[in-house]
């Protein structure tokens, strides 16, 4: 799951992740925030589900959260770049929204409800220009593994 060290990294889906502007910066999950009521959403939305405000804004979401629930996919689904067995989770972000994501760089047996996790990237192939495509994932928070 390690991301290639060389070449440009390009989001597989720019509606899901935002790459850092400067070297050493961290990628962030993209969501939606309501300027009227402050509600935050994991997906891109046009209208606020909380207050029906039109004109919801793109924002970045907390890179940390905890596993709300999970499973281990042991049969390879067609079309997936992840190789079974792999863990997936509904991650409750520290700022509220729940986002579905693969769990990488984490022992499958160590995944549990409540596990603190942090956002990372996983390699999703290459585009026509040879750039590395990256997608969102989570992994056990480093301090948790010690």
């Amino acid at each position, binding site marked *: 799951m390690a991301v290639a060290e060389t070449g440009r990294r390009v989001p*597989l*889906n720019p509606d*899901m992740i935002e790459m850092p502007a400067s070297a050493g910066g961290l990628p962030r999950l993209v969501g939606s925030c309501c300027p009227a009521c402050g*509600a935050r*959403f*994991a*997906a891109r939305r046009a209208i606020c*589900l*909380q207050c029906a405000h039109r004109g919801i804004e793109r924002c970045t979401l907390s890179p940390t959260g905890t596993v*709300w*629930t*999970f*499973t*281990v*996919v*042991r*049969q390879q*689904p*067609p*079309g*997936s*770049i*992840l190789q*079974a067995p*792999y863990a*997936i*989770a*509904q991650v409750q972000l520290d700022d*509220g*929204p*729940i986002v*579905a*994501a*693969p769990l990488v760089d984490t022992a499958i047996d160590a995944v549990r*409800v*409540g596990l603190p996790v942090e956002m990372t990237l996983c390699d*999703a192939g290459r585009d026509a220009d040879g750039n590395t495509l990256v*997608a*969102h994932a989570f992994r056990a928070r480093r301090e948790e593994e010690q």
Partner: protein
Amino acid sequence: MTSERDVVVLGVGLHPFGRFPDRSLDDLARHAALAALDDAGITFREIEAGFVGRVGGTGPPVGVGTRIFSELGQHGIPITNIELACGSSSRALMHAADMIRAGSAETAMVIGVEKMERGMLQVGGAGATSYASVMGLNVMPAAYAMRAQRHMEEYGTKPEHFAQVSVKAHRNAMHNPYAQYRVAITLEEVLGSRMVCDPLTLYQCCPTSDGASAVILASAARGRRHTASPVRLAAWAGGSPVYENGHEGLGEGPTGAVARRAYARASIGPEDIDVTQVHDAFTPGEILTIEELGYVKPGDGGPFVFGGGTEITGKYPVNTDGGLLSRGHPMGATGGAMVTEVVRQLRGQAGARQVEGARAGLVQNAGIGGVNVLVLSA
């Protein structure tokens, strides 16, 4: 208490569920439709509205309903296609019932039909190329597995509780000639089958299937011409996921709230239900749903099922025909098949699967983004 505009079930019919590579979608649908007409004792000319519930994926995407009905006869009735994923034909039945209650038709036929590919169900169909599919998140058993994991964490539900749902489903299906799998399996075999998505093993996942169902509804006034004591469709209610407490709904919808609405309309409570069909596409479907329907307290579903509470002889018999797990799950046909089983139970025609003295029945059928609850009474 009965009104002329009450809705009754005049006829039900199925094409067996399973794999039928030599039969077309139209063949399956026609077989079920003719069986329902024979069951009702009427001719197709007496049908005043037609609905088809079907999901698709392969085969003709447009106008399937009109084509299927045009082969049964052509007397100019309105025909409507309804798609709500695995809940398509029960939602179609609700709209047909609305038409009859409103007085815009005296009779309606709902056909549910599907021919499916083999393999693991994917949200959006096989070959979906969405971001979620590429990221390995678009896996139907995983959605149920994650709800199961959460239930295990909150209530201590155990893998064998889920597995028992499949043991019971297979045992019931042995007595259903329309079922896809008519073989008993043991708890050890279910738990020992290949793990698909923890904690769900292969035998806790419904098969993909071909099949068809047909249900004929009528107004009470029209029904009286054909039978003295028809099964009533007493109430129906549907819903979709609810945004609450800052979270978007993760399931198919607010089953509990939808059920309470249906109970109120039928003037009954969960304690009055004698036989139930729930959406057990995967085993957690039964345990989580009986809690949402109010049969048991949240968290008690696992031990209740494991203790035999949903057996044919239990307090709340569930999926007496084998359910999606064993009867099979041709998506568009499932809702109509659930209603067919409850109707047969309420008529006392269920043979070795009969629930003694069943007077009231409930169907809970869910599709991606929607849930339906229908209450029937003898």
